[in-house]
């Protein structure tokens, strides 16, 4: 790169980084004078700057001191120590180096552990270790690795043990969840080892998957009895937890019991806890306790209840949940008090599995017998637990489903938005399938962290099946595990783990959508097939901004709106070809002027540009058509009802489950007086998104426009005011007024004005004018009208204010201004003929020739809508 260019980047970076985060994107756009590549470069540096946090803030030596002390591992291969010829290095860890060695005297292979110098140097600890190892060497049990010898030559101290040719449980776990029957068998063997060791007075204190070996013949071997604890620092202070240079905690704490975490003395029940953690992790495929930092993890261990195992794993014997729960009791008095008890408990699920303690003379024969026995039993197991899948019943019919919030496996709460974004992305992928009803985002998100069972959730959402899973983001990779469950029977139909580059996130989404539709045997239309086959690469940083932007977009406060625009600006600056980000940016801009700053016309232009850009990139992007519809249905476009409806229809055709577009359709239908059609759309919205309370409000609104005030009021009362206080509030008051409950209406309005003094659009004030007019208080009415106009100018829903002003003048028998305001209401988006035609508040105008003509025109228009929309 040329020096000047670098200098330029440097300067822009400095200026941008000194600005508030939300102002950076706008600053760059302006400062780069259209130099796209410059602005991209600086934006990506700024993004890195925002994410880097503690990166390299602590000096290298303090983070990774072992890299300064390192002596080259594996250097001893080919040499001999005592009578052991060293063949190869098989492992490196806190225990030092472990070699495969050949015992020249006895002619057998051994695992030779060379103790690290730091341990050897500590005489007290070294002696303690030798003593324990000697006691452990007396243990004779097929699930315990036999200690042969503890010795020293020159300054080298070593421990020779039985050599196990197998894999560690950690390696097995890395391949995904272990089927419950297999996990049980492993747990039984570990519990069996523990019960013998505990009886001999030896507590392992470091039961973890790295210390469990699985042999190909099914034998499970526990390593390092009596030894492991000497490899750990004396105190396990959270501060001493290892982190990577990026500051990520690597969990050696994960299997620690609450008492260990607190630094209290431990006993056999600590091993029981650790086995509980492993059993959970084996079956669930994720650890029961997680935390972004060691402290978080310790807090979780000490105080948090893990997600019920039944939520993480399907087809699991129900007793297992109870056993794991007991083993993971925070209070050790509540746990199994001895490994033998746990073993008995586990065996109640898996009878006859224990391998008896054997005397060495008969070992070989008995081992053979045990292996045969295990094989037979394994056969029984599969028959017992997997019976359902061995005779698969026909696939149940699935026409609706919900994607539950994906679990965030990163252990970092800061990644929550990413897991949520993935949930949303999967919903969006599946929602494109027309023959499938997919519950929308807002409804499923309320189930985050719930303890409800899947069938229960499915019942509440009225769906046949649920998709659930987990997300883990590792740098630029993302790992997603998805499973499809038939809800009524909690039956597991399909699951798959995807490991992808972040860039391919949309491809991944489509892959999952295709796989799910294949599994539930839904026929895709040719267009759907094309759409789901489409692949496009997205810049990961842009995707990240996009998800953050969407997160803020989902909350309709002004501050969130500003953040959403900031993030989405960055998303499109980072990846200018990211259609969905352009569409969302448009959406955010539209809300900005419709809800918050009606005077700032630049948002309208920005929205327009973003929509056109999105559609030029992807003409089939439902969200962009939806945004275009919204932009058309605004004061400056004179609420182009027909065009807006066309756009919404197009959006719904492309994505039948885009409930926002369906809601907008209903909104327009309601405003032009086509109530049946509006309610038809709203029913669809509520089927997709039972939690869409705004849709419920709209249903009430259609009754209100039909002058069924009683029914409208009942509906409004069931909608939380926070959904949209100015809309729900004023319509409630209007319904009360029309039911003759004028005092209640007045009290409601006063209350609303106290709570929401800004009175968006002047709606409350205009209704107060109506109340004053109907009470004959003309002066008050005029004052209120003036105030309402002042407040409501430019506001998206001002047509209602105008209508109420018209009503107020009609009640005061002032046909001139009444007509003027009614015409404004109709022209500015509210030509609701049935309402104008029937509203008794307008009765004093009914003889007026101008009103008759106006109504005639409205009727004509309405009939046209009825025929054509």
């Amino acid at each position, binding site marked *: 790169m040329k020096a000047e260019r670098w200098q330029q980047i440097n300067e822009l970076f400095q200026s941008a980084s000194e600005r508030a985060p939300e102002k950076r994107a706008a600053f760059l756009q302006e400062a780069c004078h259209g130099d796209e590549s410059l602005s991209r470069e600086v934006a990506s540096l*700024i993004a890195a700057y925002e994410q880097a946090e503690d990166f390299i803030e602590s000096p*290298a030596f303090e983070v*990774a001191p072992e*890299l*300064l002390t390192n002596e080259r*591992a594996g250097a001893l*291969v080919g040499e001999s120590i005592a009578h052991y010829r060293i063949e190869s290095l*098989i492992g490196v860890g806190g225990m030092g180096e472990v070699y495969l060695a050949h015992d020249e005297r006895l002619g057998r292979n051994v695992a030779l552990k060379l103790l690290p110098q730091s341990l050897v140097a500590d005489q007290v600890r070294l002696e303690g270790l030798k003593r324990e190892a000697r006691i452990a060497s007396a243990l004779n049990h097929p699930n315990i690795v036999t200690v042969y010898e503890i010795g020293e030559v020159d300054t080298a101290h070593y421990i020779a043990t039985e050599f196990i040719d197998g894999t560690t449980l950690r390696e097995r776990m890395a391949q995904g969840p272990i089927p419950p029957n297999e996990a049980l068998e492993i747990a039984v063997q570990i519990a069996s080892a523990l019960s013998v060791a505990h009886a001999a007075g030896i507590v392992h204190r470091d039961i973890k998957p790295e210390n469990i070996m699985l042999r190909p013949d099914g034998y499970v071997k526990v390593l390092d009895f009596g030894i492991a604890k000497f490899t750990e*620092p004396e105190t396990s202070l959270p501060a001493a937890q290892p982190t990577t240079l990026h500051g990520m905690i690597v969990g050696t704490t994960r299997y620690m019991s609450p008492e260990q975490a607190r630094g209290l003395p431990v006993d056999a029940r600590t091993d029981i806890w650790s086995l509980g953690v492993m059993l959970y992790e084996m079956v669930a495929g994720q650890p029961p306790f997680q935390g972004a930092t060691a402290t978080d993890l310790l807090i979780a261990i000490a105080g948090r209840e893990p997600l019920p195992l039944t939520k993480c794993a399907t087809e699991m014997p129900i007793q297992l949940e109870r056993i794991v729960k007991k083993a993971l009791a925070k209070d050790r008095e509540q746990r199994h008090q001895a490994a033998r008890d746990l073993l008995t408990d586990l065996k109640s699920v898996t009878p006859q599995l224990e391998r008896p303690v054997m005397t060495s003379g008969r070992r070989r024969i008995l081992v053979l017998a045990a292996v045969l026995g295990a094989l037979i039993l394994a056969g029984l197991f599969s028959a017992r637990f997997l019976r359902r899948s061995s005779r698969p019943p026909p696939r149940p019919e699935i026409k609706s489903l919900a994607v539950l919030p994906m679990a965030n496996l990163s252990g970092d709460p800061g990644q929550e938005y990413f897991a949520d974004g993935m949930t949303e992305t999967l919903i969006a992928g599946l929602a494109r399938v027309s023959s499938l009803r997919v519950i929308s985002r807002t409804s499923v998100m309320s189930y985050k962290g719930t303890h409800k069972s899947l069938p229960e959730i499915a019942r509440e959402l009225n769906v046949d099946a649920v998709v659930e899973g987990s997300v883990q983001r590792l740098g630029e*990779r993302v790992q997603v595990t998805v499973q499809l469950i038939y809800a009524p029977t909690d039956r597991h139909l399909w699951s798959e783990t995807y490991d992808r580059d972040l860039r391919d996130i949309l491809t991944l989404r489509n892959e999952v959508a295709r796989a799910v539709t294949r599994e539930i045997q839904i026929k895709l239309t040719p267009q759907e097939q094309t759409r789901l086959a489409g692949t496009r690469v997205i810049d990961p940083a842009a995707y990240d901004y996009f998800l953050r932007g969407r997160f803020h977009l989902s909350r309709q406060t002004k501050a969130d709106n500003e953040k959403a625009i900031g993030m989405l600006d960055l998303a499109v600056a980072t990846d200018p070809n990211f259609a969905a980000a352009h569409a969302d940016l448009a959406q955010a801009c539209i809300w900005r002027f419709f809800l918050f700053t009606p005077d700032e016309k630049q948002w309208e232009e920005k929205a327009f540009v973003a929509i056109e850009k999105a559609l030029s990139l992807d003409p089939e992007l439902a969200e962009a058509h939806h945004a275009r519809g919204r932009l058309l249905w605004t004061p400056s476009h004179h609420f182009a009802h027909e065009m807006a409806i066309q756009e919404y229809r197009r959006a719904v055709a492309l994505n039948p489950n885009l409930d926002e577009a369906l809601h907008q359709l209903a909104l327009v239908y309601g405003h032009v007086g086509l109530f049946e059609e509006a309610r038809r759309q709203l029913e669809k919205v509520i089927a997709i998104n039972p939690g869409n309370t705004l849709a419920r409000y709209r249903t009430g609104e259609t009754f209100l426009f039909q002058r069924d005030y009683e029914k409208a009021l009942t509906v409004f009362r069931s909608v939380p005011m926070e959904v949209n206080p100015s809309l729900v509030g004023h319509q409630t008051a209007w319904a009360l007024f029309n039911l003759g409950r004028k005092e209640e209406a007045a009290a409601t309005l006063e209350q609303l004005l106290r709570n929401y003094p800004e009175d968006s659009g002047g709606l409350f004030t205009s209704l107060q004018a109506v109340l004053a007019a109907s009470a004959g208080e003309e002066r008050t009415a005029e004052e209120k009208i003036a105030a309402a106009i002042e407040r409501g100018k430019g506001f998206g829903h001002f047509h209602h204010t105008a209508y109420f002003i018209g009503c107020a003048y009609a009640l005061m028998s002032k046909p001139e201004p009444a007509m003027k305001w009614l015409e404004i209401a109709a022209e500015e988006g509210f030509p609701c003929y049935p309402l104008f035609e029937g509203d008794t508040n307008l009765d004093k105008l009914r003889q007026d020739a101008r009103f008759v003509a106006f109504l005639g025109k409205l009727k004509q228009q309405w009939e046209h809508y009825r025929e054509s929309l």
Partner: protein
Amino acid sequence: MTPPSPSQQEVTRLLGDWSGGNEGALEKLIPLVQPELHRLAHYYMSRERAGHTLQTTALLDEAYLRLVDDPGRSWENRTHFVATAAQLMRRIMVDHARQRHSLKRGGGARKVTLDETALVTETRSEELLALDEALEELAVQDPRKSQIVELRYFGGLTAEETAEFLKTSLRTVEREWNMAKAWLYRALRGEEADES
């Protein structure tokens, strides 16, 4: 006071040569300084087990006292030593990381399993190698940024000390550091994606 040992005199002389612009002096310094850094690192790590915090500054100060003949304990000499040591620390740690890395990539006949402690080291090794490489690239574009990172990250110098050593303002050091950090962070993220 004990008279300076021959090796102390040698280290002092080489430090002088090196700061006087003789690049070859560094190669001669390494074998003299490295064992002491090793030894001290071991010592500090065992202290860490007893609950003390690891501090690069403390380590290098002590190395300085042992290695350099500087009865006046001048600030300038000490800083020069630390600046040199920062380079040495980088060199040593990166070499070790490379060894660890090659070990996992088939150093033995069998596939080596690593427990969590070793896995952490392995991850750190990979990250450190990537960082070193990125720092090298940064030096091509902007040597001063690279030097600031070396001084602070490997030498444990504070921003203030770095500014004094480079004879510039604290604000400049902080600004340069911010961008260097962002640049390196981005480079490392890219690195990870390429590897996996």
